[in-house]
């Protein structure tokens, strides 16, 4: 069953790649219209990165309530994957910014807020590395993750109000409507689903690998 699901995911993401290049139209109002195809990979990566953040917060809360080491491990792996997808989203975003805006980095509100969340993920991992006792590590890391969840939303709300943005409208724009070609929507949502599945699959694998290596190193 698991092998079947993995194959299904492989086929799904392959179809998304094909759809991104042969089914969805390009955005004609862009400076380089073809560059809009990056949306099918860049946006799901950013979504997966936030999935890692939210997942870490949920698992941290569960750890604080139940003190089950599995939840602590799940939170840590979610942050690692969030960092990975966040770096990928930042890099793909920078490549696109170079093509459309002419500069890799220009402190656009989106770039600022994703950089801040990447700093947060990295700080969380640094904290975990500086505590040896597993129980204490879980406790402190979970508290820090919850603190991050309380504080970082401010950044996403404040920064766009201070500086002005060139970033294309979010998928659901300010008026609460989705203004996109339906074919672009089909591919984008399929890609988002595929990336989310990829996230949970890798998350599951990594948690199991870490559980095995912990059991192996235990006396």
């Amino acid at each position, binding site marked *: 069953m698991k092998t079947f699901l993995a194959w299904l995911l492989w086929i799904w993401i392959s179809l998304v790649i094909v759809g991104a290049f042969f089914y969805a139209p390009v955005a004609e109002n862009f400076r380089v219209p073809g560059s809009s195809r990056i949306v099918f990979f860049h946006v799901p990566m950013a979504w997966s990165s936030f999935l890692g953040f939210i997942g870490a917060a949920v698992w941290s809360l569960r750890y604080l309530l139940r003190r089950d080491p599995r939840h602590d491990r799940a939170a840590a792996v979610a942050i690692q994957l969030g960092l990975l997808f966040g770096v990928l989203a930042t890099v793909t975003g920078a490549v696109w910014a170079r093509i459309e805006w002419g500069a890799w980095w220009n402190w656009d509100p989106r770039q600022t807020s994703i950089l*801040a969340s990447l700093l947060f993920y990295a700080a969380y991992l*640094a*904290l975990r590395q*500086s*505590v040896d006792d597993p129980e204490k590590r879980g406790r*402190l890391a979970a*508290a820090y993750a919850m603190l991050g969840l309380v504080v970082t939303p*401010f950044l996403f709300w404040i920064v766009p109000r201070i500086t002005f943005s060139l970033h294309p409208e979010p998928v659901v724009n300010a008026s609460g409507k989705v203004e996109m070609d339906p074919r672009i929507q089909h591919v984008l949502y399929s890609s988002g689903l595929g990336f989310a599945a990829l996230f949970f699959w890798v998350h599951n694998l990594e948690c199991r690998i870490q559980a095995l290596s912990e059991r192996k190193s235990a006396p």
Partner: protein
Amino acid sequence: MSSTLTWAAEAGTWAAEAAAVFVKEWRCEFRTRYALNTLGLFAVTTLVVVSFSLGPLGVVRSQGTSVLPVLLWIILLFSVAAGLPRAFVQEEESQTATALRLAATPSALFCGKLLYGLTLVLALEALVTPAYLVMTSLDVASPGLLAAVLAAGGYGLAAGSTLVASIIAQARSKGTLFSVLSFPVLLPLLVLAVDLTRGAVTGDPGGVAVPVLLLYDAAVTVAGLMLFPVVWNP
């Protein structure tokens, strides 16, 4: 009636505990003057460096209004990072943390330490800000807004740093870890405070207002009160 009395008695004990922690912090501080010396000297040194290289002759007035508020908050942030973590690190190093765990309830302890941090930060701001304004000849268009930003921003700095300090005190490599952990937490506060300080200097309030800063303060305080017992009690 009796339940109201118990509640009042409990609140009284709680307040007494918080006050005792606050008084103890300052008494310990005056014995060594560690935080006061590091904070004060660090602030004055950076202040002199900044105002000497960017002072009245070094920066054009129009650039000054955008650059100088940033530097003021950077001086404050790093001074806080130099002195404030001490409040918890010293408890672990002198092995008094266990006694403190027995003596006070976590929330009262957190409030006492927070109050200590707040007075320290406010004293620092009272020392640094006038000197900074004088040395860089920065004219403030609305001093009231500046005072409000310093008070609300100072509280946010103290609250965020107190919680992060309690986390890093139990980890290895405490000094460096504090900067790493506190920066993402304090970043929204600094972005807000810098923007508002700019607004105070030019007399033109920006896109965000002081209430957002107060909202941040409230969020960090509530998070601190809820998370501190988990961090503190093994």
